[in-house]
């Protein structure tokens, strides 16, 4: 009833090829942006911004990064955590060498370092696929984690071996370090994530994304059509690692404020991979949904007993949390193996033909 495209006529090719061809979708996205940019900063508490929204957006960006590689190009990777680490350490080194420069510049530039490392570890992808490639990227994970621990230059010879973020500014506003306001950090993260999502959506609709999907669907056929597998796969690794690198830099600079090498362990790689799988392979909106499910839901569940005034111990809540999240993941994947994005698509499809869904 509300979600129906009757009466909306497409009169140009551009209108037909639009990202959001239906008016309701365009309004929906405008509302979401308005909520994200206006409503949330106005009403949300610092806790909601700092512990829910900022990490959620950062994880979303990392999920988009991995989704480009795994969902769109079909290359399974377990090195996401390490690539995020490369971004974080690159940004840390850059900003300690050039402290005066706008921190946003270094956040984005750190993605380039991550992309370069990603390309190197993507080289085996020409010869190996699937699980075998996953093992090769696992090597990246272990090697880079080792490097974060064993190369003291990376953490400026700090006795504790951790990287600590000092106060840095962008356009005269303090964005990192302990004195940075939550709202400012939120806006920085939000702006970068929205911008990079927009870039990704355009990139994936163009020839780049199409060549990724050709490689994913059948690499031999793609090669026959004229897609060069090595270049395409390495490009996918580069773009994916760029996104992960920026996410990693933001994770340390805008969220945690300090990080030990263990922050970029294999667990982080798995966490991002779960977000991709649960959200839906090859979907940008799915990346948001997956990140929201894995990050926000446990935080909310943790708040429930307290809000209801139930005297449950913190540790018990944590155990219950594991059980609920685990059960929900299994349930969702049984009901819809293609993830939350596919579920969302089905709902939209049914709404379009409502009240006579088929």
């Amino acid at each position: 009833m509300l979600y129906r495209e009757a009466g909306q006529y497409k009169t140009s090719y551009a209108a037909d090829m639009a990202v959001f061809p239906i008016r309701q979708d365009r309004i929906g996205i405008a509302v979401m942006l308005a909520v994200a940019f206006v409503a949330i900063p106005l009403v949300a508490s610092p806790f909601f911004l700092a512990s829910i929204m900022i990490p959620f957006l950062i994880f979303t960006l990392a999920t988009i990064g991995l989704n480009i590689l795994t969902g769109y190009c079909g290359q399974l990777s377990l090195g996401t955590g390490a690539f995020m680490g490369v971004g974080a350490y690159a940004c840390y080194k850059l900003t300690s060498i050039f402290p005066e420069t706008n921190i946003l510049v270094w956040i984005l530039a750190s993605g380039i370092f991550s992309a370069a490392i990603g390309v190197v570890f993507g080289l085996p992808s020409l010869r190996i696929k699937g699980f075998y490639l996953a093992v090769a990227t696992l090597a990246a994970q272990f090697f880079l984690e080792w490097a974060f621990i064993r190369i003291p230059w990376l953490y400026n010879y700090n006795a504790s071996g951790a990287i600590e973020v000092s106060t840095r500014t962008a356009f005269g506003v303090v964005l990192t370090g302990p004195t940075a306001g939550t709202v400012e950090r939120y806006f920085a993260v939000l702006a970068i994530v929205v911008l990079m999502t927009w870039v990704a959506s355009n990139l994936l609709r163009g020839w780049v994304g199409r060549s990724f999907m050709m490689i994913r669907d059948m690499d031999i056929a793609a090669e026959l059509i004229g897609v060069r597998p090595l270049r395409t796969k390495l490009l996918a690794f580069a773009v994916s690692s760029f996104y992960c690198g920026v996410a990693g830099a933001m994770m340390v600079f805008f969220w945690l404020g300090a990080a030990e090498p263990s922050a970029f362990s294999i667990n982080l790689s798995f966490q991002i991979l779960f977000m991709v799988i649960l959200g839906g392979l090859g979907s940008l909106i799915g990346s948001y949904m997956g990140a929201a499910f894995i990050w926000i839901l446990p935080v909310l569940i943790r708040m429930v007993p307290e809000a209801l005034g139930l005297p449950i111990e913190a540790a018990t809540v944590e155990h219950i949390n594991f059980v609920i999240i685990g059960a929900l993941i299994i349930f969702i994947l049984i009901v819809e193996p293609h993830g939350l994005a596919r579920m969302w698509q089905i709902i939209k499809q049914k709404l379009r033909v409502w009240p006579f869904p088929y």
Partner: protein
Amino acid sequence: MTSTRTALAGMAIAAVAFTGLATPAAQAQDGELFIPLLTYRTGPFAGSGIPIANGMADYLTMLNERDGGIGGVKIRIEECETGYNTQKGVECYESTKANDPLIYNPYSTGITLQLIPKASVDNIPVLSMAYGLSAAADGNLFPWVFNPPDTYWDGASAIIKYIAEQEGGDLSNLDGKKIGYIFLDAGYGREPIPLLEQFAKDYGFTLTQYPVPADQMQNQSSQWLNVRRDRPDYMIMWGWGAMNPTAVKEAAKIRYPMDKFIGVWWSGGEDDARPAGDGGKGFKTLNFNGVGQDFPVIQDILTHVVEPGKSQVSETARVGENLYNRGVMNSFLMAEAIRTAQEMTGKKVIDAADMRAGMENLNITEERLKEAGMEGFMAPLKLTCADHSGENDVYVQQWNGETWEKVSDWFSPMKDVVRPMLVKAAEEYVASNQPWPERSEPCAQ
């Protein structure tokens, strides 16, 4: 116009939903002292985390039950589960920050490192009792961070001093010796390395390092294979959680002489030594708190908390274990700081700034310990504006197969060596974290 209405409706619903989320779930009530406890009863470090969490909670509950709180004001404690995970630790900090907490105990070096810069901005003290950043002992640069009774560097120097004692008493006897250092390869285990390397240079012993990655804690066979090859005269351990029992078991397996294997105070849980069976006999660790139930304070906890079933301990026998008592001592320090702050300000309900002053003026004398039923439980402790650690006395305990036995007198770490290094490290930390806020808090006495 349907779409506009939809948009408006959507916006309204979203706004309502977010306002609901945005309101903090629980507000601090007036006339309460709120202490959040960042604990971990889950995850790979739960084995060490549970007794500490129990000890901390039980002592504060005992004060509420026995004395009706501190100075007549009830203490409200709230546990937040971190799982020793820094991300969750920061989340716990953010979620409890709004409820006017008096102090934080992160119980993880990783979380402490994250909270140190935040503490001085949010003006909430951090008590990292004998862990965290050693350099934070410099109160002039870190007014909001406290790490009594000792820093890791004090611990490392105390172990070296003890080894020298075993070798005849003089530090020059260490010349030509080989000392192995097995540690958790994280901020925690790496913290003492600069000091140990300095000592190796100064006293002429060889230091061999055996890092244990956090995800390989339960598989240390390769490290101990190297130990067997290198045959160090002494082994020092900086372990935590599942790493400790594994190390003790492996050491027993390669028949390493256990009385030459010395751990820091965090490697001294009963559950760290017990799983090795008879092989664990002779294992030594540093300690700075009493073990066992033979203290009036522990008896009070048994009467007022454990017997009425207000404790989370699994069995009464576990009360009085080493890490449990460490949790008690941690809470005792907080309680004494509250008491001090109440005396200083004349207020009953203090805030975080008063708490900071209370911590800074902490002076626990022999008489006070006796009064609190803790005679011999810990060494007297005094903090000052400049010294937030105190470099207090420690002792060495040994596992006899059943329980820990005190095998040395209380002795002091090498203050003369450690203190200049602490000051230097604090300056380096501040230099690399510019701009660092100047200390603006007056030194109230």
